[in-house]
């Protein structure tokens, strides 16, 4: 069917069907169901197939977005997914967790014509649709003949997975070392089931294994094996470090080490990786608080707040010191959190945590802010309002203000250059100060997103392959 651009622009944006809020807060299942075929076809028809295709530039791995959407309109889903897979290995993941409104959808021509970014083509939802349609047997990756080169990849998160797949395709023997007992990195321990079902992550990991990538779990590089011993003793030809950020930041305020104060990492790991929400299993416990405060405004803060609600909290307060406009979280997560009844406290901050005699949190002291002049990040600086202190009755505090760099590898690898924050210093090809060692993802850039880590993985894999051949 040939539609004019005007007709395309007139098709209403297809809303994502979701579990109703009152139902979903009582379970851990995925919130968004994904488009029906009918919806996907309608949404795909909204794409103007414009010549400039600014969406491709907006994507950190430059997926040929108009082409995969066009394939949907032809009902050729196999073709559509193969177009995406040329650039991104994890479409089922990225379709769900990428901040599309800041990336591919931000410059969308349709959004501009309709004078509203929120009306751009729903690229992420379409990506998820074709990824979920993909049959398990459709893995048609071309693998080059064996080169005899061995590559060690440290960390099985998005960066490591990307490098592993790219280098395996080139015929190199790839081993991923994972510190935890399950692979997947942040996709396994961090992002909750209701936003990214673990069976999707497992499927991606299994497809890696099926092309010959080896995964060694319970293996902590820097401790079980020193980084350079992988080259000196184990005969690896190259190493990629993709360990993630992995050292939660705290506020350094009074009472922060009381019982009932957690990093979001700990809270989410207990629930996601250790399955603490299955209370009948009685394995790893989760601390239960009726009234929960979460500090932060990113995706991790939203995940922690919504998780607390699902394991039975009566009130969840999200405290953020700027306004909603500055929140780094995906818009969809903010909308979902509000629908679910998370109470937003904007322009506020925790100043002190007060405990009872047993050392358990009973109250928090907060302060209010107003917006001042822009700071180094370009966002208006929050300025403290004097005398604005007030208290909230709270039993659990979750700190979600980001991660510093994990010290395990640098503690035992003095020759690896890191910056003042402990992040590994690399050149534009992800090369570190040690020949034969590359790094990418959050351990280089600080805490960022799945897709940015994958983008760096791509660059590193290309550079490693050039080095080896």
């Amino acid at each position, binding site marked *: 069917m040939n539609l004019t651009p005007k007709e395309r622009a007139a098709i209403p944006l297809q809303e994502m069907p979701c579990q109703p809020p009152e139902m979903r807060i009582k379970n851990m299942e995925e919130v968004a169901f994904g488009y029906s075929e009918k919806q996907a076809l309608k949404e795909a028809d909204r794409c103007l197939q414009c010549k400039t295709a600014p969406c491709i530039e907006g994507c950190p791995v430059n997926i040929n977005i108009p082409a995969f959407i066009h394939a949907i309109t032809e009902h050729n889903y196999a073709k559509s997914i193969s177009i995406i897979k040329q650039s991104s290995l994890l479409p089922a993941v990225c379709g769900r967790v990428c901040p599309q409104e800041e990336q591919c959808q931000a410059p969308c021509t349709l959004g501009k014509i309709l004078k509203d970014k929120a009306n751009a083509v729903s690229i992420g939802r379409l990506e998820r649709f074709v990824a979920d349609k993909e049959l398990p047997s459709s893995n048609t990756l071309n693998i080059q003949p064996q080169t005899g080169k061995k590559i060690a990849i440290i960390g099985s998160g998005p960066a490591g997975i990307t490098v592993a797949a790219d280098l395996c395709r080139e015929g190199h023997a790839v081993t991923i070392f994972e*510190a*935890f*007992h399950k692979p997947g990195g942040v996709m396994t*321990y961090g992002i909750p089931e209701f936003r990214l079902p673990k069976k999707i992550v497992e499927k991606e990991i299994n497809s890696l294994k099926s092309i010959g990538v080896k995964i060694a*779990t*319970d*293996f*902590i590089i820097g*401790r*079980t*094996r*020193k980084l350079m011993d992988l080259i000196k003793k184990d005969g690896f030809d190259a190493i990629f470090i993709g360990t993630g950020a*992995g*050292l*939660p930041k*705290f506020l*350094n305020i009074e009472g*922060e*080490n*009381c*019982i*009932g104060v*957690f*990093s979001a*990492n*700990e809270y989410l*790991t*207990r629930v996601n990786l*250790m*399955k603490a929400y299955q209370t009948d*299993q*009685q*394995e*790893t*416990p989760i*601390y239960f608080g009726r009234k929960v405060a979460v500090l932060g405004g990113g995706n991790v803060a939203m995940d922690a707040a919504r998780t607390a609600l699902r394991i039975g909290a009566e009130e969840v307060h999200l405290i953020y010191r700027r306004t909603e406009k500055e929140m780094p979280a995906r818009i969809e997560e903010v909308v979902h959190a509000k629908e679910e009844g998370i109470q937003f406290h904007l322009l506020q901050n925790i100043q002190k945590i007060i405990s009872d005699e*047993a*050392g358990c949190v009973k109250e928090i002291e907060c302060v209010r802010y107003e917006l001042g002049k822009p700071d180094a990040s370009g966002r208006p600086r929050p300025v403290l309002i004097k005398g604005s202190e007030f208290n909230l009755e709270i039993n659990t505090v979750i700190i979600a203000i980001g991660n510093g760099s*994990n*010290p*395990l590898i640098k*503690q035992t690898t003095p020759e690896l250059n890191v910056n003042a924050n402990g992040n590994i210093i690399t050149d534009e090809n992800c090369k570190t100060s040690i020949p034969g060692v590359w790094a990418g993802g959050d351990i280089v850039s600080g805490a960022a997103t799945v897709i940015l880590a994958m983008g760096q993985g791509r660059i590193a894999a290309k550079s490693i392959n050039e080095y080896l051949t």
Partner: protein
Amino acid sequence: MRNLIIEKQQLSEQVYKIKINAPLIAEERLPGQFIILQVSEDSERIPLTIADADQSKGSITLIFQTVGKTTTLLSKMNVGDKIAHLAGPLGKPTHIEKFGHVICVGGGIGIAPLYPIAQGMKNAGNKLTVIIGARNKDLILLENELRQIADELIICTDDGSYGKKALVTEPLKQLCEINPKPDLVVAIGPAVMMKFCAETTRPFKVPTLVSLNTIMIDGTGMCGGCRVTVGKETKFVCVDGPEFDGHLVDFDNMIKRLNSYKQFEKNALHQCKLKNL
């Protein structure tokens, strides 16, 4: 095969010693380090200090007391059983050098992790005094092993069933009063014992190392559940420790944090016993 239990011995009613096949950990491990294990696929992750290792056999030794669900399940495993997950060695190793006169103080199950440190201190040429204490004679561990390496071994029990009827802090104080005073004290045991060892040595200004065993999940710095207050700063036991200056550790806060899941653990253990797992 990796993670297989190759030897098992019951040392007292609640204390067990197991040897596990773990060649990589045995090769890298140094005194003071620990492992994290899971008895079965989805069970909780707990830290245990490595008591000894044999590089030639590729094995590590763990000594543990049955205090909760996981240690109870572990005590029921036998030679030939496989531990689902084992990761390590974790934590910074003990700084071992020739200090002069080193006093190693161990309480209860803490005697197990103390042993490799005492051994290291002796091998580095230190004069070694070892003080070990427990509730009763049955709970005194590794007496023969320690007697072989210590220049002096002092045994205390709470009930007087063996050695002196005293707390470990009593002989520790007496040793601090002798001139020249000791150069270093290493204390490992229950948090309250370490607290009072640190209080005992504080007036004498004898440097005192303590090895903390807090609640942990990953053991790699990722979760922060193990955090303690050391000299007003927050430190992670897993990557900054497990050893810290005992005079700077906020033990009262640490003891409270250790009890975070006490009720939960009680219920879990009760369930575990009911089902006779």
